[in-house]
């Protein structure tokens, strides 16, 4: 499943559209060094940490998109950086676990038909 399909299904607020990338899993963490080391390629990254460095870590680890949980506020600098690096940033009103579960369930739901949604 690609990012646009994902937020279409979940109704998240799109803060920066960025690149429409494949999403193949979910990763949750707010500590950047931990995310740097354990973050998974192509995962949707659910976090409440919203600053420029979140975008830097996302691109370095090659995660698909950033999903800010809990309606986290976001500053201009982060969005600028996301635009510059073509990173998709979305926002969910739900807390981290509920957001991650929702994404996980959506991925599972479309799992068998993943290919057709990636076209």
């Amino acid at each position, binding site marked *: 499943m690609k990012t646009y399909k994902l937020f279409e299904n979940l109704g998240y607020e799109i803060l920066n559209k960025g690149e429409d990338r494949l999403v193949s899993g979910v990763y949750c963490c707010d500590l*950047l*060094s931990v995310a740097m080391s354990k973050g998974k390629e192509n995962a949707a990254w659910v976090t409440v940490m919203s600053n420029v460095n979140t975008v830097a870590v996302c691109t370095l680890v090659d995660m698909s998109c950033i999903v800010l949980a809990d309606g986290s506020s976001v500053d201009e600098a982060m969005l600028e950086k996301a635009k510059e690096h073509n990173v998709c940033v979305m926002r969910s009103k739900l807390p981290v676990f509920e957001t991650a579960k929702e994404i996980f369930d959506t991925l599972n739901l479309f799992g068998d038909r993943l290919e057709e949604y990636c076209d």
Partner: protein
Amino acid sequence: MSDKLRFHYEVSGEDFTRAGEASSDLKAKLKLMGASPEVVRKVAICMYEGEINMVIHACGGVIDVTISPADILLELKDVGPGIPDIEKAMQEGYSTASENIRSLGFGAGMGLSNMKKYSDEMKIDTVLGVGTTVTMRINM
């Protein structure tokens, strides 16, 4: 002629909006050169952690990268305060980062241990009040 490629980066201190730029640039270059995804990831982690350390603790510094067919050498040099107790600094979870830095998602005490874990060889030369040089080698 030398078959080595060299890149030089200046890291400005206390500028969190630009922290990670050098790592992103190097990562893009390595990808273009066709380095394996695993090597790219290892280099990105080592370089980013080092870059962030320079910004947080040492008011910036310089990074020299040497790429050869066998390995990638990262040399990060700063003129910061130095590391008083390397053994302690290497411990996972130990951090001297300020509250302000922690609120940005750093200061988990994983920086140096991540660098050690993802590089094939790491050396720290530090002199109190003079500065620190961290050298890391990542095999291709």
